[in-house]
C-alpha cells in the first residue's frame, strides 16, 4: 500500500481509510501521553508532596531610587531594601521573604501573618532560655515602637545556632515579623539594617 498514491488518486478503500484514521489516532494519543509525561516531569520539586506554591504576581519587586520595594500581595505588606541585597522570593505560600546582605553576612526575613496570641505569649513560647537543646550565651527582650506599632525586639545568641534578632510588631490580630541571623557576619551593621528594614514596613 502506498499511502501518497491513495490520496493523490482518490482510490482509497474503506479499510485503508480506517487504517489511516487508526494510525492518526495512535499518533495523537502518543503525543498526548508524551505531553502528560512531560508535564509530570515539570512538576516543581515540592509539588509531588503537596506543597502549595505561590501564584505568579503575588510578589512584586520595583526599583525605587537606589532601593528595591518588595511587595507581598498575599500577606499584604511591603518593605524597602537596598538594591545590593540578594532577594530570595518565597516560592511556597507558607514562606517568608529572605534577604541577604552578603557584604556584611546578614540574613533577614519578613512575614506578616495572623496570630491571636499576644506578643508576650509569643515571646514566652519562643524563649530559647528554656530550650534544653541550646546553650544560650546572651538573651534580651526590649519593648519597641515603630511607626505607632508596639512590638518586641528580641536579641539572643546560642553556641549551636549563632546570633539572632527579631522585631515583632502587632496590629489587629496580625504579627509583622522581621528577623536576622548572623553567623560570620558583622552583627552591628546587620542589627542596624534590621531596624531599617522594620522601619520601611508598609502594611496594606
Amino acid at each position, binding site marked *: 500500500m502506498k499511502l501518497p498514491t491513495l490520496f493523490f488518486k482518490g482510490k482509497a478503500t474503506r479499510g485503508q481509510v480506517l487504517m489511516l484514521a487508526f494510525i492518526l489516532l495512535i499518533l495523537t494519543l502518543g503525543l498526548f501521553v508524551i505531553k502528560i509525561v512531560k508535564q509530570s516531569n515539570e512538576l516543581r520539586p515540592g509539588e509531588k508532596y503537596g506543597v502549595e506554591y505561590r501564584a505568579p504576581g503575588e510578589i512584586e519587586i520595583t526599583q525605587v531610587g537606589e532601593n528595591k520595594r518588595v511587595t507581598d500581595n498575599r500577606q499584604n505588606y511591603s518593605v524597602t531594601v537596598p538594591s545590593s541585597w540578594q532577594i530570595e522570593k518565597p516560592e511556597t505560600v507558607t514562606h517568608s521573604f529572605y534577604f541577604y546582605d552578603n557584604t556584611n553576612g546578614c540574613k533577614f526575613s519578613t512575614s506578616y501573618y495572623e496570630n491571636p496570641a499576644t506578643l508576650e505569649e509569643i515571646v514566652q513560647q519562643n524563649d530559647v532560655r528554656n530550650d534544653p537543646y541550646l546553650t544560650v550565651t546572651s538573651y534580651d527582650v526590649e519593648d519597641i515602637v515603630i511607626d505607632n506599632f508596639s512590638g518586641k525586639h528580641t536579641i539572643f545568641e546560642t553556641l549551636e545556632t549563632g546570633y*539572632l534578632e527579631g522585631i515583632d510588631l502587632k496590629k489587629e490580630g496580625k504579627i509583622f515579623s522581621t528577623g536576622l541571623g548572623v553567623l560570620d557576619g558583622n552583627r552591628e551593621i546587620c542589627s542596624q539594617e534590621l531596624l531599617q528594614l522594620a522601619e520601611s514596613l508598609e502594611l496594606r
Partner: protein
Amino acid sequence: MFPRIITIGRILGIALIALVPNFSFAVDIKNPPFYDTEPFVLTRGYNTPDTHIGKDKYALDFAQNGCSAFLKPVIAVSDGEIISVNTSTAEGLRSGGGFGIFVLLKHSDGTQSRYAHLNEIFVSSGKIKSGQLIGLIGNTGNVNRESKSCLEHPGTHLHFVMYNPDLSSYKPEPIALCEDVTVNTKPCENFTVRHKYKSEQKIAKEYEKMPKIVAEVSVPDTAETIETTTNFWQNFSNSVYNFFANVDNPVFVAGERFGEALWEAAGEGNNQASAALIFSPPTIEPLNPEPLNLEPETFNIEPLNLEPETVDSEPPNPEPLNLEPETFDTALETSDIELKNTEPADAVPAVPETPKDFSETPVAVVTGYGNYGPTGPNGSAAPIEAIVPVPPACAAFKAEYFANLTLAGEPALVQCETEIKHNWQQGSPHELLPADDFSVRWSGSFLFEDAVYQFLLITDDGSRIFVDDVNILNAWFNQPSNMYFVNVPMTAGMHTIRIEYYEHTVFASFTARWLKL
C-alpha cells in the same frame, strides 16, 4: 614501595571486614535521614564552628551539588514520636531557636534525632515510622552560607543531630578523622561521605562511575609505620561500623574493594587516598545475630521541690467574674470601648443561654516552636490559691488534677486558679501527680456579651474546650506545643466553660483563654 602499600592495603581492607562483626551497636539508626536514591555529601562534620559545637557538637550537615538538595525529602532515621516542631520560616524570635523549620523525634531507646533548616514539614505530632517522610530540605533558620554552591537558596542543607537521653549529641557517623579537632580548626571541612544503601545489583552497576571520595586519608609512606596504620584502620573501621552496623543488617558488598580502591588511590599519587563506602540491604544472614543492647543510659534524677508557690489568696468572689483579658492590642482596646457601651450587667439574663450554633465554626491551628519552660510548679504562671481536700467555691476556675490520662476517677488535687497558663516542661504540676500521663479539668461560669469570642489553646499535649457542654475546640491528641483558636458567637449571659487537658510524655505546657473580638 607502592606494591607493598597496596598489599598492606588489601590485607587491612579485608581485616576491616573481618573486624566488623565484633563491633557493638551504639545507636538505633535504621537508615540515613534521606532516601537511598539520593546520594548526599556531608558538607560539615563534627565539632566544627560556627554551629557544630556545644550540644550540637556531633551534628552533621548534608547537601548536594548546587541547589539540588532544595526540597529533597527528609525521612526519619528510626521509629519515634514527635516531641517538638517549629513551622515558622522567620529568622529571629520565631526561628525555632535558629534551627528554622525542624522536627525533633524521640526514639524508643531514649535517643532523639533533629532534622533542621527544613523548607516544609508534613508531620506535627504522633508516632513516626523509620523511613517515613517528615519534610523537605531547605534553608530556614540561621544557616551557614559559606558554601556558595547554591546561589538561589543560600545555605540549603539538612542539619542532622542525634542526641543522647541527656540531650548531649553523639556520633552517628564514621568521622574518625574529626575526633581530635578543636573549635579553632576545621580539619573536617573537606570531609565527604557517600551513603549508599541500595540493591547489590544497583551498586555493582554504579560502582565504576560513582565519585570515589570519602575522606582524605594520610597514608604512611614507610613500612615502619605499619603499627600506626593498623591502629588507624581499626579506629576508622570502628567508626564506620558504629554507624552502618545500625542499618538493618547491612551487607558490605564492596567492602574488599573499598580497601583496594583506597590503597590503589594512594598508589596513584601523593599521600592522599580516596574510596567509596558502599552498602546494600541484607540479602544474606545478618552479620550480627546478637541482640542489641539499646537500653538508654541511666541518669540520676534529682527529686523536684514540688512545694506550691505561696500566693496571697483572695477571698472567693460570689459575683461572677467577667474574665475579659487585661491588656491586648489595638483590637482589644476597641472591644473594651464597646463593652462600656453595652447594657448594664443586671440586664443580663440570670439563666445561662445555650450558645449559638458553632458547629460550622472554622478552627484555626498554628503550630509553634516547641515550648520549653522552667520545670515544675515554680514555672507555673497560674497562682495556686489553696490545696484543699474538697472542691472549693472558686472565683474563676476550679482545677481538678487527675493522675491519669483520661480524667477518670477522683481527682488527686483540686484547687482554684484565676487563669490557665502553665509551663511544667518535663516536671509535674504537684507532688501528688506524675510528670507524665496526667490530666486536668478546669471549669467555671463566666459572663459573656452578645458577641463573637475567640477561644485560644496553646497546648502540649492534648486539650479541648466546652461551652455549656458543647465541644467548640478539640485538640485532644498527642502533640508538641501547638496553638489553636476558634471564633464563637456567644449570647449574652452566664455560660459554663469547661477546659480539659492531658499530658502524655516529655514536655507539658498549656495556656487557654478567650477574648471578645
